[in-house]
């Protein structure tokens, strides 16, 4: 029993971690504070705004270490434990530092059978990184994601919780990675509905950055 207590099976988080940000950095600008209070006004209590505020904090700091969660808690007047609880529940909130580009490759079933795992393996090899980790250069994090709601244009991935890249092939990955390395923003791609293609000949949105059609999905070699 005593052994058990001395060596807990479950590793608890460090109760007093080294902060990543100095207290000078840890504040919201007045502009950000305005945005936060606008969110707070949309809900009966300030609790509702916690998810939007965590998104804002993640955009600003890149990830959410305890001191940033404390900042959010103070700003909203909520207990730290509640903010910590929310931040750790959702996968899109990063609790540790990630690369400058986070690539979420969907490997859920539609993507699985149309090459999601091939794409994942290609990325692992190209960027010399294992899934779930950040590349040695610190620029790319490659992750496996659950269905991202674009199964018709599988295999696909999401970059930095933002734009989707559809119909992935190794060649397309090469171009995308190069674009990221040279700092070009990824476009918002609108996928043309098959019925629109037949009836209207084109995508119905004329303001999309880029347009693709749904296309015959490839065959996958790997399924895991």
């Amino acid at each position, binding site marked *: 029993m005593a052994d058990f207590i001395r060596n807990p099976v479950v590793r608890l988080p460090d109760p007093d971690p080294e902060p990543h940000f100095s207290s000078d950095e840890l504040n919201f600008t007045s502009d950000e504070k305005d945005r936060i209070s606008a969110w707070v006004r*949309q*809900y*009966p*209590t300030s*609790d*509702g*705004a*916690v*998810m*939007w505020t*965590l*998104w804002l904090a993640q955009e600003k700091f890149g990830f959410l270490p305890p001191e940033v969660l404390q900042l959010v808690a103070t700003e909203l007047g*909520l207990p730290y434990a*509640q903010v910590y*609880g*929310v931040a750790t*529940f*959702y*996968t*899109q*909130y990063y609790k540790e530092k990630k690369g400058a580009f986070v690539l979420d490759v969907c*490997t*859920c*079933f*539609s993507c*699985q*059978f*149309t090459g999601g795992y091939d794409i994942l393996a290609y990325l692992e090899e190209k960027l010399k990184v294992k899934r779930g980790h950040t590349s040695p250069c610190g620029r790319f994090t490659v992750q496996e994601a*659950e*269905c991202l*709601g*674009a*199964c*018709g*244009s*599988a295999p696909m991935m*999401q970059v930095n*919780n*933002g*734009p*989707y890249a559809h119909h992935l092939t190794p060649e397309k990955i090469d171009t995308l990675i190069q674009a990221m390395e040279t700092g070009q923003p990824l476009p*918002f791609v*609108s*996928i043309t*509905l*098959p*019925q*629109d293609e037949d*009836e*209207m000949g084109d995508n*119905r*949105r*004329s303001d999309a950055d880029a347009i693709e059609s*749904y*296309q*015959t*999905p490839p*065959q996958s070699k790997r*399924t*895991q």
Partner: protein
Amino acid sequence: MTKAGDWKSYQRVLLPPVKNLHHLNIYRDQGGYEALRRVLSEKSPQDVIGEMKRSGLRGRGGAGFPTGLKWSFMPPVDPDKPRYLCCNADESEPGTFKDRQLMEYNPHLLFEGILIACYAMSMRACYLYVRGEYASWITLMEQELSKAYEAKLVGENMMGTQQHMDIIIHKGAGAYICGEETSLMESLEGKRAYPRIKPPFPAQSGIWGAPTTINNVETLACAPLIMERGGGWFAGIGAEKNPGPLLYGISGHVNRPGVYEYPTGMLITDLLEIAGGMRGGKKLKALVPGGASVPVLRADMIDGVTMDIESLKESGSMLGTAGMLFLDEDTDMVAFLRRVARFYHHESCGQCTPCREGTGWMENLITRIDDGEGNLRDLDLLLDLCDQMEGRTVCALADAAAWPVRNTINRFRDDFERRCRPSSWAVNA
């Protein structure tokens, strides 16, 4: 009236072929927001609910609950108590991508539907809960929503009436379970999204304890159409017992995947033909008709089956979200099930033991079989595990995990047995 059989002449209504329909001015040129105007000036909330009941619309979020009936469950108005609508745009069911396309191409139809629903149930606010991954679509919708606010179609004194309704977009952060209605409410309240025990049902006690109704994106988008053309028109489209237009999200090994709008009750074989048939001329092996949670169908089970709640139930599956995944003859069903089990293990919120532990053991056992180290009796263990999980948890995620496991094993037993080692000792030894 369009019956499913006349699909070739079907005219789309949820996504009509109009260029740039997502722009407010074009949507209004097409008669958009007229249904809302007429509802606000001519109809009482009871009339709206009556019309919804007449339409026979059943929820498109997966459970297929009659929408008019759901709306009538709201308690009488208490002026001191707020009431809320939630629009469920969390769409995380694997194989489902229809709501995203609707939000991309016809967001104002959704906004109009939300406002009609708010009027019918005397609500002043709707939270539109969009999954965090749809960040781009949130930005697109925010632009259009602010235009609707400027045009005074939403907000204070909307459309020159005394009404005041708000639409508030809430961004999730990546958790499948937030699609479950009580979990969605917890998430909106800024908590960990643990589903609640029902009763009390959301209509009695929802977000912040206030009466709440939750509807799917596609369900709400049907409301303006019903108000414009009447419940009788809607009830005449497609299958008799669950009528209306339906967005079919077709993915997998077909030549032309994508979101298609057709009446409910389409023959699965017709839909396969519409989607260009199987890729590379291969044969169909399996079909998941409505997202990962519904039982998979073997190719020989789909003849004459139509995409509506009744027909699919008879054939041993469910309509779910109508996100259809077609799989060809080369598909490894063990790998398929392994990935499905992984999904549920990852997405279980961990609140109930049968689900938290059960989904984990499911994944472990199927992984062992997939790696060639499973024993035949593992299959029975898995089926037993399904029995232990079903109906013993707070929400339906555990059931949704058990159904595909049970049915994939039962319907593709050979595939599994071939991968297992025969049990070399008696089970009770």
